[in-house]
């Protein structure tokens, strides 16, 4: 269980690391603006649960599970020291930490795998659970439907969180989601909920309730966390397609949580500033360490790593 300051720290890690990675690699998919949804969805998992984050900068989730930041940075830089040995898409995560990995780039497919993690836990009659996030665009893939159906039929211990950031590359969600994603829950006979995805406490509370249901054997839940993609689809995206103005009153999930902590007297502003400074330093060091390592190359081709 993360205390308020630890929670804030994860939000900051999410943002600072992402910003740094965007500068390193214009093809990185930035998470800025969506930190509360990511952090709130995964921060309460136990180490032996499974985490299946959406592809958009999921590194904070990997870090929560114990991944080393410099090795993740190495993935973005295409270094041999990446957990993926430089082979896969960089947003892949280390499977040895209970992460459902990204071993290809087709959206929707990992939701089946995540559902299988929940099946493993269900089958062994443990109280382990899986949290699985996916995009609002991804929600239209057939695999999402099939996975939700299967999880509902078998009452699997999984929490599906749709990270609705309003966009799928250049398309606006208003064009491909005539109704909200949470409205789909009823069709599977599972609880559905729509939360403010910029409010880390709201996301966390909703996910916690769903996790409890899952641990108790009461099956899956579908949560829709409404947030916003602040930046382009990829870091270098000029977004010439964005014609509509930003929605009014968009919250910055970090500021929002910082204000709350200050209001409640749960933290002082210099403490928060120190968190930013520490994290910046940590990110800089991780990047420096990653940069100093060799690029992935012929040695990582790995003809012997295909079959085990």
């Amino acid at each position, binding site marked *: 269980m993360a205390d308020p300051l630890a929670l804030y720290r994860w939000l900051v890690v999410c943002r600072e690391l992402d910003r740094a990675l965007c500068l390193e690699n214009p093809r990185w998919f930035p998470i800025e603006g969506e930190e509360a949804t990511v952090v709130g969805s995964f921060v309460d998992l136990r180490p032996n649960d*499974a985490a299946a984050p959406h592809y958009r900068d999921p590194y904070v989730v990997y870090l929560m599970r114990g991944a080393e930041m410099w090795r993740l940075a190495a993935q973005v830089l295409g270094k041999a020291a*990446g*957990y*993926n*040995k430089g*082979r*896969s898409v960089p947003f*892949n995560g*280390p*499977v*040895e930490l*209970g992460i*459902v*990995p990204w*071993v*290809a780039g*087709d959206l*929707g*497919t*990992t*939701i*089946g*795998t*995540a*559902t*299988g*993690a*929940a*099946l*493993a*836990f269900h*089958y*062994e009659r443990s109280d382990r659970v899986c949290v699985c996030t996916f995009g609002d665009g991804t929600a239209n893939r*057939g*695999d999402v*439907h*099939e*996975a939700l*159906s*299967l999880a509902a*039929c*078998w009452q699997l211990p999984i929490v599906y969180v749709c990270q609705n950031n309003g966009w799928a590359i250049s398309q606006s969600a208003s064009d491909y989601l005539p109704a909200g994603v949470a409205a789909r829950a009823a069709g599977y006979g599972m609880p559905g909920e729509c939360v403010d995805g910029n409010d880390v406490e709201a996301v966390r509370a909703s996910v916690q309730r769903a996790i409890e249901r899952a641990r108790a054997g009461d099956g899956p839940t579908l949560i829709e966390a409404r947030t916003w993609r602040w930046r382009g689809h990829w870091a270098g995206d000029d977004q010439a397609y964005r014609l509509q103005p930003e929605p009014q009153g968009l919250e910055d999930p970090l500021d929002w949580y910082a204000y709350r902590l200050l209001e409640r007297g749960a933290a002082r502003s210099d403490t928060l500033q120190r968190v930013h400074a520490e994290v910046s330093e940590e990110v800089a060091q991780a990047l420096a360490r990653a940069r100093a390592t060799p690029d992935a190359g012929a040695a990582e081709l*790995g003809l*012997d*790593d*295909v*079959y*085990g």
Partner: protein
Amino acid sequence: MSQTEAVIDAIAGEMRRDERVFYIGQDVGRMGGSLQGTHGLFAEFGPWRIREAPIAESAMVGAAIGAALFGQRPIVEISFGEFLPAAMNQLVNQAPNLRYMSGGVARVPVVVRTRVGDGPYGGHPQDYSAWFAHVPGLKVVMPGTPADARGLMLSALRDDNPVLFIDPMALAHAPRGEVDCDGEATPIGQARLARAGHDVTLVTIGSMVPLSLRAAEQLASLEGIEVEVIDSRSIQPLDTACVLESVRRTGRLVTVHEAWVTGGLGAEVTARIAEECPQALRAPVVRVGTAPVPTPSGKVRPHALPSFDRIIAAVRRVVASS
């Protein structure tokens, strides 16, 4: 035992031995499965381990992969090979990539069982097995005898890689054959010399194994042509050494499978010969497979499928042309 009984024997044995093995499929419970392919399993193991799935093939395979990644050893049945395309993203973008893309860490001990070809049921005959050999990271087997049906299923279940296990429907219930229920597993990737011969090498698999053997017997007794029949058993990995050795002796190659010819197993076997010892070929290779039409139903089907007569004709041709 029939091939189906032999497969079930292997599965039941492993399920008794290993709690992590369980079964996902449609109508695999009380009904006993398509072509009675899971007969008796539900009665012994119950609904927790013999799991009825909704009609959601991609989720079934995806869930099996995920469960394998998290410590179980599931079998997932796609009732008929015609439905593999519905789970194709899981089968080719996910299962075979997991180990390699995780830096060699992930283990994915999942068996995907399906059935292909013509047979007593007659429906859904499409045989797409060749596709899965194209993609590195999967193993693909197709037994041609009851003994191998049991032996290959045992190997598949004990393998830490995703294995596509394909029942040829034509052999589901007959011919029956001796099966040693305490016998060893059949190693994946080793072809079987089904019949020795010195005139022609015939490489075959699945439903075409007994048919090819019958053709070989007739050719030997009526025409004095001795055909060496190699049951490939595995499509990926492919046992090339065995075929090479044989073709070096016979100088003639015929390939026979129920799938289409273009881009099929026969193409790959032939290409490997042409890579290793083209000069050994004393006659043009002949490939036998389903005619280049979408596999038809009913009474049209026999005219599209490889047959006893077409095998005989193919062998005669390679003998005549050298």
